[in-house]
């Protein structure tokens, strides 16, 4: 059984159809990348999974149980944490408070939460010295790290990451993806939306390519890159023979 399964899921924003009959699956322990151009429906897919958007058709199953249309507050209690595009750090709360709130999906004592937050500083050492700083004062890379730490505090079985590289310098992007690889090593499954196909496929086990809300193709990173047509049309990597 797959950890997460989407079966013919369709979703719309008002009159605009954003997803048309998308089916995909994520197995336990995998990193799966969702790729495609802006507007292809990648973020919409994540929003449908985490409950921010109610699918108009189709089934979403998590650990075999249907979750489509479930409220986000319940979805996260099942063990799906969604780190949305743009990090969405609470600007008026401190770094530590942001991290602590990540555990709002489960019961734990204040002391226990404090210990877990301290553990986060081991994965994200930069955040330790910033723990008293307000969210909005952080740089983009720091905010991304904080958003990841906050997502991990939910102790998710599945982590949904939307564009973690957005607006970050290459060096920082590498750091972020190193952390993502490490998160998987610790047993968390990751479904990753990325525009930067190269970096996404460098950590992913499999990738799905979307176009206007439909699945175009899927495969291992090698397969996707070896398919010249796919690469040219969807992965933004036009250059085939770099001089």
């Amino acid at each position: 059984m797959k950890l997460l399964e989407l079966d013919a899921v369709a979703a719309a924003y008002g009159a605009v159809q954003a997803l048309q009959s998308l089916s995909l699956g994520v197995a336990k322990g995998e990193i799966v990348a969702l790729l495609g151009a802006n507007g292809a429906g990648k973020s919409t897919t994540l929003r449908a999974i985490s409950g921010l958007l109610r699918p108009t058709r189709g089934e979403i199953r998590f650990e075999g149980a249907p979750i489509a249309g479930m409220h986000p507050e319940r979805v996260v209690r099942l063990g799906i944490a969604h780190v949305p595009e743009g990090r969405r750090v609470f600007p008026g709360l401190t770094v530590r408070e942001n991290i602590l709130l990540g555990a709002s999906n489960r019961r734990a004592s204040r002391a226990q939460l404090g210990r877990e937050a301290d553990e986060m500083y081991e994965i994200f050492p930069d955040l330790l010295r910033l723990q008293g700083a307000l969210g909005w004062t952080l740089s983009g890379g720091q905010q991304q790290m904080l958003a990841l730490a906050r997502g991990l505090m939910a102790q998710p079985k599945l982590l949904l990451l939307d564009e973690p590289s957005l607006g970050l310098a290459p060096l920082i992007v590498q750091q972020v993806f190193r952390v993502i690889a490490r998160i998987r090593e610790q047993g968390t499954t990751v479904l990753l939306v990325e525009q930067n196909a190269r970096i996404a496929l460098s950590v992913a086990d499999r990738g799905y390519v979307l176009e206007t809300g439909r699945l175009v193709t899927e495969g291992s990173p090698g397969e996707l890159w070896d398919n010249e047509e796919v690469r040219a049309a969807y992965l933004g990597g036009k250059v085939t023979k770099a001089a």
Partner: protein
Amino acid sequence: MSPRARTLVYVVAAALAVALVLALPLGEYLVKLLLQAASYAIAVLGLTVLLGYTGQISLAQAAFFGLGAYGVALGTTTLGLGFLAALILGLVVATLFGIALGSSTLKLGGHYLAMVTISFQQILTLVLTNWISVTGGPDGIRNIARPHLPGIDFENNQVYLAACLALLFAVGGLVALLKSRRLGLAMQAVRDNELAAGVVGINTFRVKIIAFALSALLGGLGGGMFAGAFRYISPDQFAFDDSVVLLTMVLLGGVEAAIGAAIGAGLLILLPEWLRFLKQFYLAVYGAAVILIMVFLPAGIWGLFSRHRVWKPAAPIGPLELDIEAAAGTLLSVRGLAKHFGGVRAVDGVDLDIAQGSVHALIGPNGSGKTTLLNVLSGIYRPTAGSITLNARAVAGLAPHVLAAAGIGRTFQNIRLFHSLSALDNVIIGAERPGSGIAHRAAATARALAALGFVGMAERAGELAASLPYGHQRLVEIARALAGHPVLLLLDEPAAGLNLTEKQELVELLKRLRGHGLTILLIEHDMDLVEQVADRITVLNFGRHIADGSPAEVLRHPEVIAAYLGEVPSHEAA
């Protein structure tokens, strides 16, 4: 029905209604109620313009109503003027205050605007109550005169009511006509999407001031007629609660159409009468009704009946005149352009030259500052530093509508159409931009249809913008920009969300535009598309440009490959 026939029917119906009011034996009590409803309806029409058309809130309509009423009252008593002169005095005062209040929208919107209008309302009430030597204070003013015209007995309440109704029909007709005129469309554009309205050449601030002025004028007119009708006024008739009542009337009837004002005013004047059996609780029921209306009738009563009628264009559609005088040299030149948000350097010292008649692509990772650059070029943001020269004219820091008038047209990454208007009206607004050389509506319509035809959307001209599928909305947005006859077209990710076929159609469209000599600056992630249409590419990263040149050069540039395009990945995880 043609517009001409519709006007005729309206005039005949109005004349009939007025004649009926004159002829039927209405009881004195009913006449008084109708007098109140008619004068209120005129004031509510002001809110139709302000809130319905332009989307600006006002909780001070009773204040303007009061200014008109006190104008007539003081004019005909203390000043000894005739009714008409006194009314004009009231209208001038009301309109001036309307303009003053409207100018606060330069900085404020939403709740703040609500607060400004409430404050104005409160202060006026205090002045009317306490400036006893002039206003008579809480006792109000008696013996207000009515108009004198030989042969017409305005002293008869029923005759005066007929005059009020005639005025209401006239004003209502004008407000209804306004909706489809240039000013009315501009107002609706401001309401639907203020940012896009500026970019298509509408001076949004001016439109909002005009809306406030008109609203105040109509408020004053209603108040003036009210004063004449009851011949006695006092400050408590023009208090905050009455502003709320006027606002409720327009929302209940329906803000979208002039007829909503009449429905709302009529109903809320009569409703308390029908609720009299509830005795002292009738106003409580009225308050509860307001909540229920908001919950269950979001578009008001008229909203239940009105539906957008989809139509197809009948007349043959002409070709779109796009050609620009072929000139060599640089159309747009950007030097050292920077835009910082607090500590974030979204654009950080960019130089850019766009040649006349070229298609210039701007590429770079998400978050590299491309859209910010476009926002600076179209006037949405003021640059922190640097210069922008368009056709040898320095244009950095100018307002969006000024830049639109200078010939910069654009589309948005997340499409910004005027969603409650038809596709054609969207494009007509584009065609009517100042400086487009369009003099009248017929020409604008022809050009708008031509622009829709050019992008292949003429068939859907009569559909509501919001109901179009995504790809078509993009095309309508491009048509809106084209209809303004731009010298420079800025396109922000036009291919986002399109499928392969639609993308290919877009490539063809861009090639045709280039064939007409139009200069285009294009942000796009799809390298395939960029390679097919671009003459030149500039690559941005972290708000700076990292490469510049022909597609062949840029796409092979090692730094560009590293930062953006990427190579076949190695599988040792980074």
